[in-house]
Every structure is written in structure tokens, then in C-alpha cells.
């Protein structure tokens, strides 16, 4: 049993040694209060391509990459995808150990993983970066609600149960216990819904295409089709015929005070004292939240609301345009 245990550790430390050889410490701009001038990256080609986080650290002509063996290289920024917050750097080197992004794997909830990064810049010179162990807490999407996470990234992430996302960790590797690449550690993110820090990595699957395009020089920064864009003309409470209770508190619950007769709201059966709790699938926690939520709905679209009336949840659909002015729409 003792032999078993020691050899298990030996295999894990072998794995870590292999992974360490592919991790890069990156130094660049910053150094001010609260803005560290360093981050982490991974080698993704034998000839010196480095995948890292796109951040202010790269906002300089002098980016230094330090390999696991302590060699220093000046790194050039090949390109970046601001939407995914990743960048590709290049150093003049050859025959380097590297992660093949095509051989990256997926992980599931409960999987034991390791995160390797230069968090807090603890590793200096040829010192290997810090290794943390943890578990995939959940695979979740960040897009849930607008403004919850301050990042343009809207895809799935691996949420981790260990404090990985610290200053300097962005761009580090998330790997399996066998050393297979799973994802890239993201920047520090605060969850504004419950005021906690989020520890996460972005799956390689989400990044691969962008990285290839950047490397081949074909990358064109694109607007996210799913981006939170307000329509030119959106619906509002007046258009729907809803008058809410006076908005006097920081979080006034959106109770309906009055419904204008003949309005879309009246036709949908909304009544005074109904509490509006959902718009589409978005939870509405206050009068303010409802008003801003409606700004994202085009005035030509249906508005789906869920009401709470006497402990019962009711779904209603409001058709502002059709209900307000049905004949006009039919006219040629």
C-alpha cells in the first residue's frame, strides 16, 4: 500500500513536471497599485506560439516570456480576440514542449483537476509556477444576466472549487490529473449577484478556432451576434399599459399599481397588485430591473411576463404592436 501510494505521487509529479515545461510566465505593462505586471500563458506550438489572456499586461512593446527552464524571450503579440479575452504571442524558439489544442479534453462536474499558473507572481526566474488541485464544481454559462460578470465572454466555463483566479493567474492551464489540457484560467471576475469571486477556466473548445485564425492571420474581430444590444426602439411600460407602484426603495418590488384599459397589458389579463417576477426567463427583482430589462425587447416583439398572483405563477404574453394598432400593421 505504501509502495502504491508513493508511486501514485511519483506519477502525479511526473505529470506535473511535463505540464510545467509548457507553462510560460509573462511580464509586461502594469506594476501600479492593484495592476500586476505579470500573467501566465501556455505554449501551443513547438516553435514558440503562446496562448495567454488578453489584458493590459500585453499593452506594451516589451513583453517578456520566461520558459520553465528559465530562458527569457522577447514576445511579439500575434493577435488577440477581445471577445474571448485571449491573445497569441510568439517567441523566437524551436523544439519546445507544447500543448496540442486539438488534443485538449473536456471535463465534467466532479472531475479532479490541477491548475498551473504564476498566481501572485510567486514563481520567479526558472522557478516552476504554482500548482493547485481542485474539482470541477460545475460547467456553467456566464451569460445568465446582464452585468453580472464584467467580461465580454458569454460562453460556458469550468467553475472550480479552489481559489485559482488570482492576480497573475490569467492564461494559466487547467489540466486533468493525467496532464491533458482542459482550459485556460480567466481573469479575476466578481459575481455581482452574490458578491463572491468566481474561480473558473474557459474550455479550449471555445478558443480553438479563434486561436487558429489568429495564428494564420485570418482573424477578424467580430461583434458577438448574441451581444447585449438594445433595439433601436424598445418597448416600455407606457406602451404596454402598465403603471407600477411608486419606485421609492432601492429594490422596490415591481407590483402593478394600475393597468390602462384597452392596453396590451389589460388584454393579457394583468391586474393591479400582480407582481411581475419574470420577463422571458430573466428574474425581475425590482421596478428598476424591469424598466431596464424592457429596453432590450424590440417594440415589434412579444413580451412574455410571469406574474405572481396569490402565490400562483401566471404566464402572459403581451403583443404591444398588434394590440395597440392592429389595422396599421395589415396595411400594405
Amino acid at each position, binding site marked *: 500500500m505504501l509502495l*502504491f501510494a508513493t508511486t501514485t505521487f511519483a506519477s502525479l509529479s511526473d505529470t506535473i513536471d511535463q505540464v510545467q515545461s509548457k507553462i510560460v510566465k509573462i511580464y509586461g505593462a502594469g506594476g501600479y497599485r492593484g495592476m500586476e505586471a505579470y500573467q501566465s500563458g501556455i505554449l501551443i506550438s513547438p516553435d514558440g506560439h503562446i496562448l495567454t489572456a488578453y489584458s493590459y499586461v500585453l499593452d506594451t512593446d516589451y513583453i517578456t516570456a520566461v520558459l520553465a527552464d528559465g530562458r527569457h524571450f522577447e514576445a511579439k503579440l500575434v493577435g488577440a480576440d477581445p471577445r474571448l479575452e485571449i491573445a497569441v504571442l510568439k517567441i523566437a524558439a524551436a523544439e519546445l514542449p507544447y500543448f496540442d489544442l486539438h488534443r485538449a479534453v473536456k471535463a465534467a462536474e466532479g472531475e479532479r483537476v490541477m491548475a498551473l499558473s504564476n498566481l501572485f507572481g510567486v514563481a520567479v526566474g526558472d522557478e516552476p509556477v504554482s500548482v493547485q488541485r481542485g474539482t470541477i*464544481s460545475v460547467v*456553467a454559462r456566464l451569460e445568465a444576466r446582464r452585468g453580472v460578470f464584467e467580461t465580454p465572454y458569454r460562453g460556458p466555463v469550468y467553475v472550480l472549487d479552489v481559489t485559482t483566479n488570482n492576480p497573475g493567474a490569467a492564461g494559466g492551464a487547467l489540466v486533468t490529473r493525467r496532464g491533458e489540457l482542459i482550459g485556460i484560467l480567466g481573469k479575476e471576475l466578481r459575481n455581482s449577484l452574490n458578491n*463572491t469571486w468566481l474561480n473558473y477556466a474557459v474550455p479550449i473548445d471555445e478558443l480553438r478556432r479563434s486561436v487558429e485564425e489568429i495564428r494564420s492571420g485570418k482573424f477578424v474581430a467580430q461583434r458577438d451576434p448574441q451581444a447585449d444590444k438594445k433595439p433601436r426602439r424598445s418597448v416600455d411600460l407606457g406602451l404596454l399599459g402598465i403603471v407600477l407602484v411608486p419606485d421609492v*426603495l*432601492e429594490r422596490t418590488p*415591481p407590483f402593478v399599481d394600475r393597468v390602462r384599459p384597452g392596453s396590451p397589458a389589460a388584454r393579457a389579463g394583468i391586474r393591479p397588485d400582480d407582481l411581475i417576477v419574470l420577463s422571458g426567463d430573466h428574474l425581475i*427583482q425590482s421596478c428598476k430591473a424591469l424598466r431596464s430589462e424592457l429596453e432590450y425587447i424590440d417594440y415589434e416583439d412579444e413580451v412574455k411576463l410571469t406574474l405572481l398572483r396569490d402565490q400562483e405563477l401566471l404566464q402572459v404574453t403581451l403583443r404591444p404592436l398588434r394590440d395597440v394598432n392592429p389595422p396599421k400593421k395589415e396595411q400594405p
Partner: protein
Amino acid sequence: MMGTKVFGCFLLLAASCCHVAAVRAADDADAQEQAALQAAVNRVAPAVVQIETVGGQEKVEGVLFGTGPTTGLAVDPRGYIVSSAFNFLNKPTSILVRLADGRRKSAKLVASDHSRMVVLLKIEAEKPLPVCEIAPQHEMRVGQWAIAVGRTFESEQPNMTVGILSAVERISGKALQTDAAVSPNNYGGPLVDIRGRVMGILVPLSPDASGGVAGMEWYDSGIGFAIPMEQIRQVLPRLEKGEDLHPGVAGIHLKGPNLYVGPAVIAACHPQCPATAAGIRAGDEIVEIDGRRIVRGVEVKTAIGRHYAGDKMRLTVLRGKERLEREITLAETLEPFQHGFLGVLPMRTAEEKGVTVRYVYPKSPAAAAGIAAGDTLVSLGGKPIAGRIEMIEQISALEPGAAVEVEVRRGQSLRNLKIVLASLPELLPPSDLPPATDVRKQAETTAPRVGVVSMKTPEYANEVLGYVPDAPASGSPRGVVVWLHGRGGFDRKQLLAEWKPLCDRYRVILVAPKSKNPAGWMATDAALVDRLLTEVNSKYQVDPARVVVDGYESGGSIALLSAFSNRESIRAVAAVEAAPLTPPLENEPLHRLAVYMASAAKSPWAAAIERAVATMRQMKFPVVVKKLGTASRDLNAAELAELLRWIDTLDRI
């Protein structure tokens, strides 16, 4: 040589074969472990629900309150769900529950358990809710797997964090402890074992603070707590009926200062408390609770802590040689305790017996009974009075309205008086108080340094200016005032010029530390105050009845914090232009605390100070309110002299 090399190669080969096999085995073990963790979560997942709330306050106890989804666990097919009280502290208008299959239901908060900080919710379920198997507490072993499960992310799957069971029977036996990451992401969710059985419900808790957000600062720190599911199941029927549960109070005060040392001897019982009602009284030593042996004071606290108000406890006490067994029913709250007052100031002389009256408060019970300055109080309730401090303690343990028999000597004549106690005065004393000591002086035998001294302690970097009036009059110990400055620190010369004459006149040691942060004091500086008091006590003979913490602005807030957290040694607090950081704790029969609150009409803290005064008065602390005019400022010379005069009357009886 050759042989060794071959042998060496062989060994290497064998080792590498073994290595490959071991790696495969380790991979298998990893895979199995992972599968087990996932299976455990899958077993509870159907019962783990997401909770969303609408409306509610933005801040709770000064902590910004998130609006984010939280977690609950179905515990009864009829639609009952338990969650952490933390998730509802902001008193939301409406609660929505999102079941594991995605259906949303509106929920009602049925009842709260204020002792274990869990709540019970109810939804109208069309079909029975899935419920989980409960892990029996006797099977739990420290070191076993513990998985914390929540449902707060945008995913079909619940979120899980993995760790071990770090401890059982934490926080008065009410909580399990785990090193799995516990945070608002899983508060209200289950802590499950490797077999997918529910061990407990995750809640923020703190061993030394109560209240809803206590323990939140420890999120994701490796210190997480869960209320054992077995305990919750026992109270579910009561919660289902809508009964709120509260921590139980016995009204017992144990002899301190250190509850970890020595037997559990009762120092005082609240006059109207479950213990007094059961015939338990001061001096009794608690030796058993509910059949469990009690060795130290702290075990009594733990034993009471796990009980609810209304629970019965069986106490076995020793009274002298007698062994008594009493059943007490714990209360939810006690009537606030108010200290009794006779109406005299004692002389501070080292008389063997009795207390000589220095001053009689006008309109006090003592005045009404005809006691005059110069009289000597000889006995109380038929027992000789040992001295000033003992008499303060005896009278303080009684409430206003209590009748006492006092024997008074005037010249050669002795009189027996029956006096009904009043409450401590909330007025500042007149300017013509007679001195508390004889004028005859006598040097201390071992003379520590007097005059202006540095009282810096090795543990703290803070500079500490001290002023010690010279050798006191015969037998009269010195009072202590720890003064905490406001914004901008203080000027040494100016401070001494103001304080020195007053310190000399009233025989008070001044201790004035400087904050390390020029912007002001931090809550953690209360520890510095305690340390300085210990230091002064060890070097000088201090009058325990006149130990005061005084502060201006943030210094005043720290003074209040110190006073309420160190009731054993601090007898009064003076806060100038300062509001308390935390609500005051209840008044104690054993320890008096007088309060002086000075504020200006246009003080930025005016409203908070007013609220604090009202709360403290409600809790029956004697509060002197001093108005400083319109603009916010520190005390002027006349007001400081008046404050010191008030301090001079703190040994009032």
C-alpha cells in the same frame, strides 16, 4: 562492479514495470473516486432546488446583500424545502423556487430556526418532491469525504465542491465543519457524504458571533459549516406548524474570567430567569447537565447553546456538600437586567470593615432614609460589609425595587434601615463633590514609575502615552482612563496640559495610545485596549470600580466596542461624537457598565447615536447624554472636567 550494474539495470526495469502498473491503478482509482463523487451528487441533485427572491433590502448588517440565486433542499414530498437563513436576511417580498426539472414555483417562508440559522419554505407541489436519504450522525467520521452542493449557476447540473469532514459537534454541537468550499454559491444546499446521503445543510456560522451574516467573511476559506440534517429533522414538525425557534437562555452567569479553567461556579443568576425560577442560585457549582459531566465553565455554554428556548434541561449542582438536581425550562429572552442603586458615594479608604459615606445623592433612597455623609454602612442584610467593591457587587446584583436592610453607624449610635433600591442615576454629578480620599499621603511600598511614562507594550507597535498621578493617599487605588483619539491623533503637550490636573485631582491614570493608521481606529484595536488595561493592572494598584474607556470619533466607536466586549474589567465608556459598531449585548447582573454619550446636533452620526442611546436605555444601561451644541467637536476643558468628575462617581452604590 559489473554485477552491480546489471543488478541495477534489472532493478530499474522492475521499477518501471511496477511504475506503469501503479500509474494505471492510480488512474483507475482516480476514475473510481471521480465516479463516486459524481454519483453522490447525482443522488441528491433532484432534491436540490434554486431559490430566487424579489425585493428586499440592499444591505444587511452593513454587508451588501446579493440578489443572486441561492440553494435549498427538498425535505418533504409535500413541498417543504429547507434553506439557509442567510438567503432571506434581506426580507424579500417574494420567493421563487426553481425545481431540479426547471419548473418554477412560488414559495412561502413557513418558519425560521434562529438558533441553527435555517429556514423552512413551502411550495404547492402537484407531484411529490424527491427527498434524500439522511446520513446518521453516529456514522460520521472526521476525514471522510464531504461534498457541498448548490444550485446557483446557469446549468442543468448542481455545482459541487469537494472536501472532507473537518469536525463534528462544532459551535455548541450545532454544526459539522468541512474544508469543501462553502459560500453564497451553496449556502442552503446539502453537504453530502460519498454515498449521496445528506449530512447537513450549509450555512454561514461563526463560533464567536451570532446574527445572520456572521461567518460570511469565511466564504471559500476552507472553514465551512453545515447544520446536521438529523437535528433539522427533529424540529421539522415544529417548523412545519409555523413555529419560529430561538436559542435558549438560562440566565446563568459563571465565575470568570476564564471559562476554560476551573469548575462551573455560578457567579450570578438573572433575577427573573429559568435558573432562578428552578431555585438555582449564585455560588452553586454545576456538575452535570442532562446526565453529562461538566468539568469547565465553557461546557455549560456549549450545553445550553445546543438547546432551543422552551427546551428542558436537567442541571445537577453542588451547594456546599449538598447535591441538588433541578429541571429548568430555557427562555427565549430575559427581561433586561437593571442594577440597583442605594444613593451613596463611598470613601476610598482601606477600612477593614464597612463603607464610609462620602456623599449622598439628593432624592435617592439613601437620602430618604436619612443617611448622611460621614455615616458608616456596617452591614447589609445582616452580614457585615467587607468593603467598597464587595458592597457595589452586592447591591448591583439586585434590581430597583428590591428592599435591603442596611445597618448604619453614626458616631456611637447604630441604626437599622430598610431601604428600597432605585436605579442608577443618568445625571452628571454636581461640581462640589467632596474628595473621596483622606489628604494624608503615603508612598506605595514598591513604587512603579509615576508621572509621564510610555506604556508601549511589546506586542503592539502603537506608541502609548501614559500619565500616572503620584503615590496615592492611604489605601486608595487609582482609576484608569484609556483615551482613544479622533481623526489626526493628538498633540502630546496639549493632551498632558488638559489631563494632568484632572488626573491628579481625581487620582486617575491616563493611557493614550496612538493609532497605527492615521485615518483612525480599526475594530481590531479593541484588543489593544484590553492589553493596555492588563498592563496597567499589573503595574499599578487600580480601582476596579473606575476603569473607563473614552474616545472621540472612531476612537469612541472602539471605546464602545471594547466596553461591550470586555464587561469583566471595564466599568464605564465615554463616546464623544461616535456611534457603536455593533449592537450592545445585554446588561449583566455581575458587571456594571455606565455609559456617557456626547454628541452635537449637526453630528454626522447624530441619528445613529440617538438610536444607540435608545437601545442601551432599553437594555437598562445607565446612559448620560451630553449635548455639545450645534457643530461636531471634541469636549472642551469644562466638559472634560465634568466627565472626570462623573468618572469619580462610578463607585456609587
